[in-house]
C-alpha cells in the first residue's frame, strides 16, 4: 500500500512534464471557464483528442486541473458582467454583481478563489478518506430519491430570495419549469409545445438561455443615456496586486476562524451532491447558498460575501464528489467524469472496485492531483482576477456591443446552431422584462436545469408504482428526503405568511 503511495508521489511530483501539463491546463481551464457559453464539460471534451497521447496520470491531471479552474473562472464574468461563465455560478449571479457594483469585485473574487481552493481541497480529502464508503450511499438512490432531491434543490431557489419577493422567485421558478417542458419529453417521448418547429424538439438549451437571461438583459437595461455616460460597469478600486493578495489572505483567515461550520457544511454538501449521478456542481452551489443564507433576515454585505463563499466552496467540492461513483462503480457522477471514464478505458484502465487493488498507485495519483490542481489554481486565479479587472474599465458604450458579440458567439459555440442564438435573444428580452419588475433570474435557470429531470423522475417513480402516488414514499430514504422537502416548504410558507403580516404594518 505504501509502495503504491510512493509510486504515485513519484508519478505526480517527480515528473516535470506533469507540472507543465497542470500549469497549461490551469490556464486553459481559466480561459474556457471565463467565456460564457463554454462549460467545463466542453473544455474536457475538446481536450479528449490530446488525451489519447498522454499517459493516464498526465491525462487525469490535466482534466482535474482544467475543470477545477473552469468552475472558478465561471465566477469572473459573473462578478464583472453578470454573465455566469458556467452554470455553477448562476446561483449567486445577481448577488455577486450587485456587490461588484459597490466596488467589491476584487475582494469578492479573492474570496471566491480562496473558497474554491478550500472546497476543492476539502472535496479531495473526503474523496481520499471516505470515497468507497460514500459510494455505498450513492447506490441507495433510486429515481424516487432523485425526485425528492431535485424538489429540495428547487425549494432552495425560493429560499434564497430576499424576504417579500418570495412569490416573485416562485413565479420565476415556475416560468423556468414551464420552459423546461418544451420539446420532446424524455418520459413521454412525445413533443410538447414545439409548434412543429424541429429545432424546438431538443427543448430550450439552458446555456444560451442563461447567457441571454443574465448577460443580454443586463446590456438592455444599460441602454439609457445616463448609464452610457459612465466609464465602466462599476467602480474598481485601483489597488495593487499586493493589496489584492493581502486582502484575499486576510479574508480567508477570518473565514477559517469565524465560519468553520459554514465551510465544512458547504464542503460536505458539495461532495454529497456531486457524488449523485445527475446532480452536480450547479445544484451543489444552489443548496449551499440557500443553507448559508437561511436565517439571515436583514443581511449585510458581509453576510452576502460569506454566502457566496460557501456556494463557491460547495461547487468546487462537488467536482471531487463526481469522481466517487466513477472510480468505485464506473458510473459517471457528472458529464465530466463520463468523459474521464472514456479516457480511462482508452488507457486500458477499467474503473470499478478492482481499480483500488490492481491500480492503487493510479488512485493515489488521482488524489494527489486533486490537491495539486487546487493549489496551482491559487496563483493563476489571482492573475486572472487582475486581468479580468481591466475589462470593466472599458467605457460602457464600447463594452456593451462587445458583450453582445460575446453573448452571440458563446451561445452559438455550444451546439453550433443559430437557433440557440435566437433563444438567447428571446431570453434576453424576457430577462430584461423580469428584472425590471423585480423578479429574480436565478430561479428561471434552475427551473430550466431541473425541470426536465424532475418530471422524468416523477413519471418514472409513478410508472414503477403502477400509477400509485404512495410509491413516492415507499422506501426509507425516500421518506427521509420527503420529510426534508416538506420541512423546507413549510419553512418557506411560514416566513412568507409572517412577512405578509408584517408588511402592511410598515
Amino acid at each position, binding site marked *: 500500500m505504501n509502495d503504491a503511495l510512493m509510486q504515485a508521489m513519484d508519478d505526480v511530483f517527480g515528473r516535470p512534464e506533469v507540472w507543465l501539463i497542470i500549469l497549461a491546463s490551469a490556464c486553459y481551464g481559466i480561459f474556457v471557464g471565463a467565456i460564457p457559453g463554454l462549460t467545463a464539460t466542453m473544455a474536457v471534451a*475538446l481536450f479528449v483528442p490530446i488525451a489519447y497521447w498522454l499517459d493516464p496520470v498526465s491525462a487525469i491531471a490535466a482534466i482535474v486541473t482544467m475543470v477545477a479552474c473552469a468552475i472558478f473562472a465561471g465566477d469572473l464574468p459573473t462578478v464583472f458582467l453578470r454573465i455566469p461563465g458556467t452554470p455553477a455560478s448562476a446561483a449567486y449571479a445577481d448577488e455577486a454583481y450587485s456587490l461588484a457594483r459597490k466596488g467589491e469585485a476584487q475582494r469578492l473574487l479573492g474570496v471566491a478563489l480562496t473558497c474554491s481552493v478550500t472546497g476543492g481541497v476539502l472535496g479531495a480529502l473526503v474523496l481520499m478518506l471516505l470515497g468507497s464508503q460514500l459510494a455505498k450511499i450513492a447506490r441507495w438512490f433510486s429515481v424516487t430519491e432523485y425526485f425528492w432531491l431535485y424538489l429540495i434543490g428547487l425549494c432552495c431557489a425560493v429560499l434564497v430570495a430576499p424576504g417579500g419577493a418570495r412569490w416573485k422567485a416562485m413565479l420565476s421558478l415556475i416560468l423556468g419549469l414551464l420552459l423546461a417542458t418544451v420539446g420532446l419529453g424524455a418520459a413521454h417521448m412525445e413533443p410538447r409545445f414545439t409548434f412543429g418547429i424541429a429545432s424546438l424538439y431538443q427543448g430550450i438549451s439552458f446555456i444560451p438561455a442563461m447567457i441571454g437571461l443574465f448577460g443580454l438583459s443586463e446590456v438592455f437595461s444599460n441602454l439609457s443615456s445616463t448609464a452610457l455616460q459612465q466609464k465602466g460597469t462599476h467602480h474598481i478600486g485601483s489597488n495593487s496586486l499586493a493589496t489584492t493578495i493581502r486582502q484575499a489572505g486576510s479574508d480567508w483567515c477570518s473565514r477559517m476562524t469565524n465560519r468553520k461550520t459554514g465551510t465544512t457544511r458547504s464542503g460536505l454538501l458539495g461532495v454529497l451532491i456531486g457524488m449523485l449521478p445527475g446532480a452536480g456542481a450547479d445544484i451543489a452551489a444552489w443548496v449551499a447558498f440557500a443553507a448559508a443564507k437561511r436565517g439571515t433576515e436583514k443581511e449585510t454585505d458581509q453576510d452576502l460575501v460569506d454566502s457566496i463563499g460557501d456556494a463557491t466552496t460547495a461547487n468546487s467540492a462537488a467536482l471531487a464528489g463526481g469522481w466517487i461513483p466513477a472510480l468505485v462503480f464506473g458510473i459517471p457522477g457528472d458529464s465530466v467524469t463520463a468523459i474521464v471514464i*472514456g479516457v480511462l*478505458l482508452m488507457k486500458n484502465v*477499467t474503473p470499478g472496485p478492482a481499480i483500488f487493488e490492481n491500480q492503487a498507485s493510479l488512485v493515489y495519483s488521482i488524489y494527489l492531483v486533486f490537491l495539486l490542481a487546487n493549489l496551482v489554481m491559487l496563483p493563476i486565479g489571482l492573475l486572472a482576477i487582475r486581468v479580468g479587472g481591466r475589462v470593466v474599465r472599458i467605457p460602457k458604450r464600447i463594452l456593451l456591443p462587445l458583450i453582445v458579440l460575446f453573448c452571440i458567439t458563446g451561445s452559438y459555440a455550444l451546439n453550433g446552431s443559430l437557433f440557440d442564438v435566437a433563444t438567447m435573444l428571446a431570453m434576453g428580452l424576457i430577462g430584461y422584462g423580469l428584472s425590471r419588475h423585480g423578479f429574480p433570474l436565478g430561479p428561471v435557470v434552475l427551473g430550466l436545469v431541473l425541470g426536465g429531470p424532475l418530471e422524468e423522475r416523477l413519471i418514472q417513480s409513478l410508472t414503477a408504482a403502477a400509477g400509485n402516488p404512495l410509491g413516492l414514499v415507499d422506501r426509507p430514504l425516500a421518506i427521509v428526503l420527503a420529510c426534508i422537502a416538506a420541512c423546507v416548504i413549510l419553512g418557506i410558507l411560514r416566513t412568507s405568511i409572517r412577512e405578509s403580516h408584517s408588511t402592511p404594518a410598515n
Partner: protein
Amino acid sequence: MSPRVRPAVWLAVCLSVVGCRHGDQWPNRPITLVCPWSAGGGTDRVSRQIAVQLEAELGVPVNVVNATGGGGVTGHTRGATARPDGYTLTMATVELNMLHWRGLCPITPDSYRPLAMLNQDSAAIFVRSDAPWNSILDLQQALRDAKAPLPVSGSAIGSIWHLAFVGWLLDQDVPTGSANWISINGSAPSLQELLAGGVEVVCCSIPEAGALLTAGEVRCLGVMSDQRCPAAPDVPTFHEQKIAWSMGGWRGLVYPRGVPESRARKMETALLNVAGSEQFASFMETAGFHLDVADGASFGEFLSQADQAFGDILAQPAMQQRQSAPVGRYFVPGLLAIVATIVGGIGLVSNRGSRTTRREDESESSIDVRLLIGFVVLIALFIACCETVGYLTASAALLLSLLLMLRVRVLIAALIVLVTVPSLYQVFARALGVPLPWGWFGW
C-alpha cells in the same frame, strides 16, 4: 487615409488573406462531424476518434459538434438538412431506422448518402449479481409466471434497447404485459437504478455495462446475437440458449443527399482507410465496441433491410401503445400553471400596498426604447443573415452598427471591429474548434 488608420487597414488585409487560403483541392476548410448524442457517451467517443484520424487523413481540421436532444431527432435532422457541400458529416446511429416510424421526424435513411458503417453492438440482458435467475430461459420463465409486472429499463421508451427487449418477448410469445418498462434516459442511469433496486432487469449493450460487469456487480444472462461479444467472451449468446433472436444497434457515417459524387467518393475512401486502420481497430477493441466495417453500398443495403425490419416490430401493438405514463403529457405543465396562478394571485394581492413606491424609482433609470429596439433588430438580422453571409462579415457588421448606434466615433469603432472580430474568430474557430458559419467569402 490618416496615419492612425493605415496599420489597421493592413491588419485587415493580412487577416483576410490568412482567412482565404482558397485552393482547388477539396477539402480546403474544416469539416464538421455532427454527433447526435452528448459528449462522453459511446457515440461521442467513436466520433472523436474518427475526427482525430480523419484530420490526419485529409489534412483539414475535423470538429465534432454534439447536436443532442429529442432522442436523436436534432442531430439526424441537422445532418440531413445541412448544406450538401461535403463539409458536414453525420455519425448516424440506429435511431435513424426508428424515428421516422414513430412519426418523430421526416428523416429516413433515404435522406442520406451512406458512406461507411463502423460498428454493430448487440443488445444484452443484465441482472443484479444476487438475482435468482441463472440463464435467459430462467428469466423468460419468471416473466411468464410473473403475477405483477417486472420493472425493466435500459433507456427511454421507444429506444433501441426497449425495442430489442419487447422484440424478444414477442418472438418467444411471452406476454408483453409481464414487464413494466420504465423510461430512464440512458443506460448508465438505468444500471444505477438496477443497483439501487428500482428495476430488476436492464437491457443495453455490453460495453455500456463494462465496468459493472467486470466488477461483478451485475451479471449478463445473454447477448442477442449468434456470436459472442469479444469484450465479454464468457457471456453466452441467445442462440446458444435456443432463442433465435438477434437485435442490436449500429453506427455509421453518412452525408446528406446531394453532395457531389466525386467528393462523396473521396470521403468514403478516406473513411474506409480510417476505419480499416490498426489504430482504429485497437481503439474499438479497448472501448469494447464490436468493429463491423462496411462500405457505402453495402451500408446502404443494410440500412434499407434494417429499416423494413424495424418498421415491422414498431408496428406491433406492444410497441404502439403508450404503456408508460400513468399521467398525461400535459399533466405537469398544467399543474405548474395552476400553482403559478395561485402564487401570482396571492403575491399581487399582498404586494398591492408596496407597489406605488417602487414605480417611482423605476422611472429614474428608464432606458432608451429606440436603442433597445435597434439592438434587438440588429441581433435578429444577424441571426437571419449569418448562415449565408458568414460569421466574420455578419459579426463585423453587427458590432460596427452597435458601436455607431451608441455614438462611438467612426474611426474608433472601425478599429475595434478590426481588432476584436478576427481575434474572436481565431479563438473560437481555430483554438476551440467551433465551426463558425463560413458564408460568401469563404470566411
